[in-house]
């Protein structure tokens, strides 16, 4: 427990200290720190507890591969759980908390789980918790405790207070990663004239160069980096995004990036928290580096056990020593560099190499720095509990065991090129036994892995690899440029030795975050869960927030060993997006509900609101449901409005109806094919009610269609189906009947529409409208006329669904409010007023019209009582399919009217119609609408009933409503409750 900060060094701004807190303790770091480096600098080595066994955990890495240091950052509504300390940039006032421990990090009651370790092996829960009893009740009992024990951090319950942004972008080449390879690829490609976006997850460019101590091109790594950065930033055709993670490559070069916008907590500016970039890239160069693998040995999860390269990063970049004396355990050359740098920084360093011998420049450099090297030895077990006190090593068979005292252990089990983005594209990686790594597979995708992501280890070679990748992209996009070759993968002096597993002592973790041990892998394989994907699911290996970054290859190697196969034969698991965890908020963006489903407002919206309308959403439109007077209820309101309409006159905004202009010499023929009834023969100046069927012969939508000119029709649709009908008409015209000279254009937004209904409708319209006569002869029922209101052209159709004298007035949308106000003044003078959709529907129900609930996509024309509308003279869409036997069955559910048997009784929509004793099953039908009719003085309703009127008229059925605990007797009647002869309509 002796991590500490060096007096000098590191890429830190020591003049700018940063205050932060950890579990309430106030601590200090520097600008340039990550949360993890600052914690280590303060000697905070124990930071969390493990998922299953609540083992003490520290900081294992210095990057995205972190398995252990997951903290909750912030509090209250801004608490962000499961935040990686290793990638979180330290900022002023940052508050970090350990999670998944109680009552405290050091005294966590959850460690009791360790007592039960022998029973808690992989998948133990599949074998127990089933009884007593045979039902799910028992599991429900156990599950409650399991759920409480599981999970890591606690999410805030408050709405996320932050804002997110969304940017669309385009580029020729997207370079992911700004290490030596990425920087060089970006430089070469932009130099050749490509538009380049370079993204880097870190808050500094440089990647591996940030911890490099060896010169590049004869200058120090930091000088080289600075000069490259200066050049790139000066280049006009390159955009550099730091703090930005490319999380997914989707089809056709669409790449998702998340940029974290730097802010201090509590800063009340308007800056968004994160920004989503959707980039369309012609090509992608992945220079995302490689991830070092841990080694598997006993207690390899203890705080103080770290990846060797991360230990080096902390020393070189952040001037933090992970301990005073370190043991580096390895099977490859790269660890010698780490050992050398640690030793040079003054940490007493012993290197334990599983190989019998190794030589070459890296080894020499380590030896020159006074690193003590032990060959032919492997780690067996780490000593210590909340921190490391030593390491037991031995030969690969467990002999020659000895304990080395140390307070930090660095592991290097080889490197895994970061190919997640390529794997997301379904490109299978290829196993290289020589490098003990998966290398990029062949692909036709315009994606190239370069540098360590392609298995190239040396800085110089990575730079060359990036140069070749950048040139390749430029050439592919038509630029003339010399193409350098790609350096071969590899770059070590000595071959890696695949790790050995004999004589492991204690719990050895393969997936540290999910507490999956070597024993779990053995158990799982022996039980037959031996395919990588089965094992992953059975043990949960690789399912944590790190998605198996450090564990996947080790697990595959173990499966291969256990099954006596080669790793290449075992296969891989596929990496899925996102590459790194992405907040759901940034994917959603700002005001996501409205982005997805914008609410639509009628031109009369404001005028309705000013009349006190109660607005309700219907088919994306906000519509006036009713105009309450005082505290009037909906029920009282619609009945008052209905009485008003039937007695005098009312006006209703129907602008949301779909309106489609169908024009052309063949418009009539087209509509003849689309509607079940005839429209070619409809005279100019007339409207007709029509129904369209789908291809399968079932009803799609209804509405009126007006012939306003020889080649000019106006089709109206229900509010909900406007878009669907438009697309349908366009599809028919373009794909099925391209010979028809007709077109369909949406004019919904161009017109405001106001419905006028009631015996005094004509009186209302008379003084307002000019250019048309309104008397019965000049303007009969279903007539369409043109005129002017307040000097503006309008169209009026004499249409009614209420059964009263009625008109629909269409004016250009911009004049909608003016027209509404004129009508409103008039209507009030006649003792009428505005009415809403509730009344609109209720009036139609009294008249026996379908109001929507019956048009459920499952009803036929005959079901709706509209069978007589179908023309026998012409074929139309659905005319063949509607004749299928089950659709012609007399016993189908058909439209009927319903009234209560007992006066004063009510019944509810959704009640099931059935015979009185028949209280189970689907019954005979259901109630689709029900209102209290002020005209009739009792409840009336419409239902769909098997066999319909012809079978049931006059008979009594039960409207069974068990969910409300009620059932009522209803009588089946004709649905035409009001004025069945239509006298008022034609009056």
């Amino acid at each position, binding site marked *: 427990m002796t991590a500490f900060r060096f007096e000098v060094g590191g890429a830190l701004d020591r003049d700018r200290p940063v205050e932060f807190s950890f579990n309430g303790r106030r601590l200090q770091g520097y600008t340039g720190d990550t949360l993890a480096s600052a914690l280590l600098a303060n000697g905070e080595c124990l930071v969390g507890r493990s998922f299953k066994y609540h083992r003490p955990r520290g900081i294992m890495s210095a990057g995205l591969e972190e398995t252990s240091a997951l903290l909750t950052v912030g509090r209250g509504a801004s608490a962000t*759980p*499961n935040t990686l300390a290793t990638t979180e940039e330290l900022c002023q006032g940052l508050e970090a908390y350990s999670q998944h421990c109680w009552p405290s990090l050091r005294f966590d009651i959850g460690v009791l789980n360790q007592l039960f370790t022998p029973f808690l092996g992989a998948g133990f*829960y*599949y*074998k*127990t918790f*089933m009884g007593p009893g*045979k*039902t*799910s009740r028992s*599991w*429900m009992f156990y*599950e409650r405790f399991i*759920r409480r024990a*599981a*999970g*890591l951090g606690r999410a805030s319950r408050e*709405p*996320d207070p932050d804002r997110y942004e969304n940017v669309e972008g385009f580029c020729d080449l997207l370079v992911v990663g700004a290490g030596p390879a990425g920087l060089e690829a970006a430089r070469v490609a932009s130099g050749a004239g490509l538009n380049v976006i370079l993204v880097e997850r870190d808050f500094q460019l440089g990647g591996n160069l940030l911890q490099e101590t060896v010169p590049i091109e004869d200058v120090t790594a930091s000088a080289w980096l600075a000069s490259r950065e200066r050049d790139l930033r000066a280049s006009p055709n390159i955009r550099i995004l730091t703090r930005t993670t490319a999380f*997914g490559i*989707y089809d056709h070069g669409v790449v998702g990036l998340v940029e974290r916008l730097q802010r201090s907590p509590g800063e009340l500016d308007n800056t968004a928290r994160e920004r*989503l970039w*959707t980039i369309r890239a012609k090509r992608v160069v992945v220079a995302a580096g490689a991830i070092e693998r841990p080694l598997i040995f006993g207690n390899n999860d203890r705080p103080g056990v770290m990846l060797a390269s991360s230990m080096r990063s902390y020393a070189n970049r952040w001037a933090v020593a992970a301990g005073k004396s370190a043991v580096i355990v390895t099977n490859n050359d790269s660890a010698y560099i780490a050992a050398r740098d640690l030793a040079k920084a003054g940490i007493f360093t012993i290197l334990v190499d599983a190989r019998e011998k190794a030589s070459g420049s890296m080894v020499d450099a380590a030896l020159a720095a006074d690193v003590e090297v032990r060959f032919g030895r492997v780690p067996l077990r780490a000593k210590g509990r909340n921190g490391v006190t030593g390491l037991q090593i031995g030969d690969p068979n467990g002999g020659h065991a000895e304990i080395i005292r140390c307070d930090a252990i660095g592991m290097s089990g080889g490197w895994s090129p970061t190919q997640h983005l390529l794997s*997301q594209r379904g490109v299978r990686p290829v196993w290289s036994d020589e490098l003990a790594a998966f290398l990029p597979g062949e692909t036709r995708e315009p994606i190239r892995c370069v540098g360590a992501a392609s298995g190239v280890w040396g800085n110089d070679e990575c730079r060359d690899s990036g140069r070749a990748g950048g040139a390749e992209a430029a050439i592919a996009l038509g630029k003339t440029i010399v193409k350098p070759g790609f350096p071969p993968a590899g770059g070590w002096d000595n071959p890696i030795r695949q790790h050995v597993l004999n004589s492991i002592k204690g719990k050895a973790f393969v997936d540290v975050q999910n507490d999956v041990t070597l024993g779990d892998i053995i158990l799982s394989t*022996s*039980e*037959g869960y031996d395919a990588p*994907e*089965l094992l992953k*699911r059975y043990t949960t290996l690789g399912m*944590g*927030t790190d*998605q198996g970054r450090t564990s996947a290859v080790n697990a595959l190697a173990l499966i291969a060993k256990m099954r006596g196969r080669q790793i290449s034969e075992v296969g891989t698991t596929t990496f*899925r997006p996102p590459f790194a965890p992405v*907040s*759901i*908020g940034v*994917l*959603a963006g700002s005001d*996501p*509900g409205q982005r*997805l489903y914008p609410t639509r407002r009628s031109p009369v919206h404001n005028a309705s609101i000013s009349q006190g309308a109660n607005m*309700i959403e219907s088919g994306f439109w906000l519509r006036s449901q009713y105009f309450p007077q005082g505290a009037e209820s909906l029920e009282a309101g619609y009945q008052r409005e209905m009485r008003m309409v039937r007695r005098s006159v009312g006006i209703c905004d129907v602008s949301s109806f779909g309106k489609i202009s169908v024009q052309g010499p063949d418009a009539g023929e087209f509509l003849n094919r689309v509607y079940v009834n005839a429209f070619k023969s409809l005279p100019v100046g007339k409207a007709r009610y029509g129904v369209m069927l*789908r291809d399968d*012969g079932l009803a*799609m939508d209804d509405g009126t269609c007006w012939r306003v000119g020889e080649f000019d029709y106006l089709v109206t649709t229900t509010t909900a189906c406007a878009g669907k009908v438009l697309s349908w008409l366009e599809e028919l015209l373009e794909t099925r009947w391209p010979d028809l000279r007709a077109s369909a254009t949406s004019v919904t937004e161009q017109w405001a529409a106001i419905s006028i209904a009631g015996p005094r409708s004509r009186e209302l319209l008379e003084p307002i409208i000019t250019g048309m006569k309104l008397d019965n002869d000049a303007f009969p029922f279903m007539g369409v006329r043109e005129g002017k209101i307040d000097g503006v052209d309008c169209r009026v159709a004499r249409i009614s669904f209420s059964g009263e004298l009625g008109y629909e007035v269409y004016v250009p949308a911009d004049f909608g409010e003016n027209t509404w106000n004129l009508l409103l003044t008039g209507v009030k003078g006649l003792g009428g007023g505005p009415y809403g959709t509730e009344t609109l529907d209720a009036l139609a129900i009294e008249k026996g019209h379908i109001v929507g609930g019956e048009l*459920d*996509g*499952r009803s036929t024309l005959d079901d709706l009582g509209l069978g007589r509308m179908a023309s026998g003279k012409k074929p139309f869409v659905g005319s063949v399919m509607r004749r*299928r036997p089950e659709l012609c069955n007399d016993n189908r559910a058909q439209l009927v009217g319903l009234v209560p048997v007992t006066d004063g009784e009510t019944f*509810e*929509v*959704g009640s*099931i119609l059935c015979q009185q004793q028949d*209280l*189970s099953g689907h019954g005979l039908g*259901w*109630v689709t609408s029900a209102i209290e009719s002020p005209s009739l003085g009792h409840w009336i309703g419409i239902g769909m009933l098997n066999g319909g009127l012809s079978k049931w008229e006059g008979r009594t059925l039960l409207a069974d409503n*068990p*969910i409300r605990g009620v059932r009522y007797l209803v009588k089946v009647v004709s649905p035409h409750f009001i004025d069945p002869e239509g006298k008022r309509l034609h009056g």
Partner: protein
Amino acid sequence: MTNYSAFELLRHAVSGRPWSRAWRNPEPKSQYDVVIVGGGGHGLATAYYLAKEFGIRNVAVLEKSHIGSGNAGRNTTIILANYLLAGSTEFYGHSQKLWDTLSSELNFNVMFSPRGQILLLNSSEDVDGAVRRSNIMLRHGIEARLLDRAAMQKLVPHLDYRPTARFPIWGGLLQPSGGTARHDAVVWGYARAASQLGVDIIQNCEVTGFLRDGGRITGVETTRGRVLSKKTAMAVAGHTSQLGEMAGLRLPIESHLLQAFVSEPLKPLLDHVIDFVSHGQFYISQSDKGGMVFGGDLDMYNSYAQRGNLPAVRDVASLAVSLMPCLGRVRLVRHWGGINDMTMDGSPIISKTPLEGLYLSGGWGYSGFKATPASGWCFSHLIARGENDRLSAPFSLDRFARGATIDEAGTGPIPRLH
């Protein structure tokens, strides 16, 4: 084979004795009474019930990869039975009953957890629809409760009840017996139980063709050799069209892409399964491990890619945050795609085929996981007896030509809209 129990777990822990294989790993025989193509939940359940209910044990399940590698392991694990239409209500109601005792039936904890499933109601039309739906459920012995806004707020407090909510919550339709189960465990549980009854589970065995004798199917060609069978059954939802084509079947199915999502593990935040269908589609639950598991609509184009695109990801995230605003800071750790067999009416197919000896179960759309027990139950009956039972009779292939489609969504013959 060892029984699974707390006692055995203890005994193995103390003795250090290794557990035996969960299911046998036999070589394929040259002949079986029944060959089931597809080692997902449905195929394995069918094999299990064939052996258990009908005593037909000379059965092979052929799987081209490892068991559960298809949709069985890619879904959002939701179980519910709030179906409206004749045929569906009864079938999924039966499935619901089988779920309740499945763990003890299989001696494998499938973690079926009826924590309750809630269909959100966001308008008065939704409430009207829910009255009918809940009445239908109650009249079929499926629990249902209508919750008003206040009750919803008490039961599921973290949804958006603010006046600014884009999707105002009017109430909810609660099916208390709805919930989730551990999808992989269902596969493994059926596999282990079927294997114990003598069924051969053959992994890494891809069917490459059918053997036929005139109009009769007599077996299959596979990558592990020829296998003869008296009866052959297809349970390969996602690839039904491909396999069907090998037999010359022409089917009313399209394959579509459905993505699913899981967040980082969190302490318990959501107990119920929440379904939202008012604008598009969204469903979410929290797994026992703590991840928020959610999904939405299809990507809306035919696909076998098993990976989706960003617009659908953003749409689903948008609904997630709109409905549950505290999810904004929660991070997504993985999203993936499955291949949905979408039929022309959105309901499955359990049917004889025009070819003698060939039986089809497919077209499971969104409903495959919840249907697993009933699907196996009914399909085994069809295979054993040669006729559909009462529960699956409405799902025969000829329903399209007859006009007897079962269209829960009411969207007609457009598969992606179901």
